[in-house]
Structure formats: C-alpha cells, structure tokens
C-alpha cells in the first residue's frame, strides 16, 4: 500500500491529494498537461518538498507531523523520466552499476527476486549495449537502459514519468512489450505518469485521474473506464478494458476466444496459450445495441447485457451496459460502454434495467 497525502501550491494549480495506491501492479496517473501528475510523482520521490505524508507499507518516507523527510537518495525507489537522463560520461554498464553499487542489499534479495543484474539486462534486452556510450544509443535503447538502471537498485517502488512521451510510434511499440514483461515478471508496484490513453489501456491496473492538482477519481482501471460520469467517457477513445483469459483457438478461422466472468469474445488469433491472462479493449463507438438477439448478423460478438445508465449529450447517447443476462449477478461485474445516436436511443425507448444485446464490432487484444 502506498500512502500519499500531499499538498503543494504551484503556479496555476495547487496539488492537493490524499491517495491510497495499491502496493502492486501499475497505477497510472492520468490527466491533461499541467494537472499535477509530474509534481505528484516528484513529491513521492522527494524531489519536490510538498507538505504531508508519504509511506510505502510501514516505511514512512515523509511525515511532516513528525518532522520526518527522507531525502530522495535514501528512498528505495527507481525513477525513470522522459529524457532517460543517462550519465553521458559513463558506459551503459557503468550507468547500470551506478545505483547498484550504492545499495547495500543485492538485487536478488527484494522485489526483483530471482532477477539480479543479468535478469534485468535480459528483461530489457540490452545485453549487446553494455559497452556503448549513451550518446550512441537510440531513444528507445536509452529508455530501456534507464529502466534497467532503475531496476538494478532493486527498488521497492518504480516511478515512471511519461517514459514513452519522447519516442515516436515505432520506438514506443518497441518499448511497450518490455514494460508489459516488467509488469508480469516483477512484483514491483509502479506509478506511471502519462497523458496517453493507449498506454493506460495497455499497461495500467489502477487509475488515478487528476484534474487541476486534485484527484477526480481513483480505482481499478476497468471500473473507472466504464464510468460514464468521468471525462474519460467523453473522449473519442472512450471504451472499456476487460481482463480475460484465453479460452480456445480456432485455427481454421484464425480466431481466438477469450473468456471472462459474464461472457466471452472472439478476437483475431493471438499467440497466447489457453489459460493466459489477456486484456481486451472495446471502444464505446464500436458497440451497438439491439432489443432482440440479432439474427443473421456478420458481427461475431453478440452479448446479452443489461442497460445500467443512459446519458445523452447533443446528438449522442452513452450507454453503460453490464455484461451477463438479467438477474445473473456476478462477483466481478464487467461493463461495456456504447456510444449510439440519441435518435436510436429514443427509437428503442431505452430505459435503465432493459435487457439488451450488445453487438461488438471491434475488440483490440492488448496483451
């Protein structure tokens, strides 16, 4: 559990948050530029002197009530920023050793259990770069070295400030799989600042929405993405993520079935083995609804749903749909968002509680 109660006046906004972040998985701090994401991250690291309290589990890093402020270099954290900030006078190997040599405990003993330096180097695929100088690396390579350098200190918390923002789409695509590997391989909590929704949808488990220095909403990603009252739902990219498992492959049609509590979806065939955890993203604009189960439709994924809420704005209506037939309550509800025209909503006379069929035209498998 990461506790952060912080207050820091800034030009244009005052950071004022009281957060309990989960002690595992990736928590994304998301919001427009100038909302205080980076300031919050820096305050967690002790790089900014905000007022309040920061604790990681039972380790208290800052507590103004007890006049305690641990300077950054004493906090067992890793910090990766957009510009990588490698030491230009040192080789890649010496960059990796810089932090590692300064921690008393060996990498193997903590969060990166079983990894060690070789494991970290492997994980990020930088073995061939060890004798190079930072100036000779590409942007993507530099960023991977920066991540490895942070991990080599066996941090108990990894803070990442838009690590992909300086990279073009191709470099981004090069790094994302490494971040996903990191997420799977290490039981290390990561706080990840970004303003890119696709990174959030792909990587985050938890989401903190910041607006003008304050927390607008915080919680599990799937829940927050499915909330029509949040600004996320008004984006063109609005949509939900569904945590699912690979169920079966249909090689003859090149399809894979992924199952979750409350239903299943057919997606384009993936390399993942049956039983593997995957994440499906369904955009609100790719979902339509019908009162009867559509007959003879080309849409592969037709799912029984219950309409929970309906919001209209201008010519569009945003529906929040709970997957599963009416009455079939499940422990972990799964929702879809559907964006349809207001005219359609009126023609169908949609009311909360209606049992409907959702037709899903597009599913993106994230991992």
């Amino acid at each position, binding site marked *: 559990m990461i506790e952060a109660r912080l207050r820091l006046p800034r030009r244009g906004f005052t950071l004022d948050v009281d957060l309990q972040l989960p002690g595992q998985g990736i928590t994304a701090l998301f919001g427009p530029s100038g909302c205080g994401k980076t300031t919050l991250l820096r305050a967690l690291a002790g*790089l900014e002197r905000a007022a309040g309290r920061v604790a990681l589990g039972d380790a208290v890093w800052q507590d103004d009530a007890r006049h305690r402020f641990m300077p950054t*270099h004493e906090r067992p*954290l890793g*910090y990766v920023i957009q510009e990588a*900030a490698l030491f230009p006078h040192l080789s890649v190997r010496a960059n990796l050793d*810089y932090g590692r040599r300064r921690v008393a405990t060996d990498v193997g003993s903590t969060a990166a259990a079983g990894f060690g330096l070789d494991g970290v180097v492997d994980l990020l695929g930088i073995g061939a770069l060890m004798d190079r100088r930072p100036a*000779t690396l590409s942007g993507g390579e530099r960023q991977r070295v920066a991540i490895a350098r942070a991990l080599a200190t066996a941090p108990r918390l990894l803070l990442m400030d838009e690590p992909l923002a300086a990279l073009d789409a191709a470099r981004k695509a090069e790094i994302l799989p490494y971040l996903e590997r990191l997420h799977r391989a290490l039981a290390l909590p990561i706080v990840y600042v970004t303003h890119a929704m696709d990174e959030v949808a792909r990587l985050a488990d938890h989401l903190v929405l910041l607006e003008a220095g304050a927390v607008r909403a915080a919680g599990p990603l799937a829940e927050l993405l499915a909330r029509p009252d949040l600004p996320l739902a008004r984006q063109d990219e609005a949509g939900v993520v569904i945590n699912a498992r690979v169920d079966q492959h249909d090689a003859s049609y090149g399809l894979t079935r992924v199952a979750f509590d409350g239903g299943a979806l057919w997606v384009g065939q993936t390399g993942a083995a049956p039983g593997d955890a995957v994440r499906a993203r369904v955009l609100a604009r790719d979902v339509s609804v019908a009162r009867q189960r559509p007959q003879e439709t080309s849409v592969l994924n037709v799912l029984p749903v219950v309409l929970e809420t309906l919001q209209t704005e201008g010519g569009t209506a945003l529906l929040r749909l709970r997957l599963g037939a009416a009455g079939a309550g499940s422990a972990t509800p799964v929702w879809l968002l559907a964006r349809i025209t207001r005219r359609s909503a009126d023609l169908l006379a949609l009311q909360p509680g209606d049992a409907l069929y959702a037709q899903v035209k597009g599913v993106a498998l994230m991992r």
Partner: protein
Amino acid sequence: MDAATWTVVRLTAQLAGLSTLLLLLLGTPLAWWLARTRSPAKPVLASLVAMPLVLPPSVIGFYLLLLMGPQGPVGQFTQWLGLGRLPFTFSGLVVASVVYSMPFVVQPLQQAFEAIPERTLEAAATLRAGPLDRFFSVALPLARPGLVTASVLGFAHTVGEFGVVLMIGGNIPGQTRVLSVAIFEHVEAAEFDAAHRLAAGMVVFALLVLVTLYVANRPPRDDRATAP
C-alpha cells in the same frame, strides 16, 4: 640558461602552480554554489568575483597593499597569527594572484556546472547518491572541460600578471622576482637579449597553453565505431 634566469622561471612556476591549486580549491565550491543557487546574494558575489576583469591591476594592487599592510585588517590578522606581513613576500604574491585570477577559474567552472541538466543530478539522487557523492561522481566528471579551462587559464594568467606583482611583490630575486617583472627589468636596463629569451619563451608558453586548451576541449568523438 644562467642561474638567475633559472631562479626566475622556477619561482614563476611555483607561484602559478600554488596559486592554481588554491584557485581550484576555493573556486570550485564557489562556482558550484553560483551555478546552483537561487539566492539573491548571487549577483553580488558573482560581481565581486568578476571585479579583477574590469579593474586596472594597479587598483587591485593598491588596495591589496593597503589590506595586507601593517595597518590593514589582513595585515593585522597575519601579524596576529605570527606570519608577519605579506607584502613583498612570496606568500603575499600567492594571495594577490588568487584574488586577481579568481574570475578566470570561477567563470569557466560555473558555466560548466550550469550546463549540467538538473535532471541528471536528480537521476543520481534517485540512484542513492547523496549530495557530496553526486558532486564528485556526476558534476565534476561532467564539468571536466571547464575544469581544464579553469586550470589552464588560472595558471597562465598568474604567469602573465605584471601590475599586481610589481605592487605587491616588488622585485626581490628568489622571492618575488617572477618572469614578467624580470622582462620589464631587462628592458629597463636595455638588456634586450635577455629580455628576448624570456619574452620568446613566454610566447611559446602561451601558444602551448592555448593549443592544450583547444585539444582538451574538443567535443568527445562518437565512439560508436569502436564499440564491439
């Protein structure tokens, strides 16, 4: 080279070497502070350091003489310490050189420190390096070109100084008679051959200094080609 000339050259090298050492010891922390501080005292201190750049050497020499003289505060202090008076001694020359050459050491160092991005030092902090550790493991190596420039300029400027030396040190062989003063004296005495030897030596020295500087501060070559 006759014995007298040799004494002059050795004394000059000693003066410049010792002054450069002291200049680096005092100037490096000062430059680091000037580069990183947001204190309102910064422009005042920066101006004080830069004064020798704009003041005639005779003005500096005059006031140093007053300060270090028997009635001056520095003079009283050195006498109280039992060190005697500084004017017309080698120690006095060292003190004067340090004051006079300070901007030539502090300014290149300050520029080098200012060129280090804050985020690089912060990265070191997130990698468990404390403030002093960050200074020695990141700031100083990254400021290497500035350090070379500062040392060379500090040394060369001390060697070339004349006005302050004449006022503080006078012309005592083996104690304060350095190159620039010796040349002046040779010329006064119409010993043009002797003046030539020393002056030409200075020209060669200056040239060597500048070439060293330019070589040392070449941008580092891209070592991709040598990477395995």
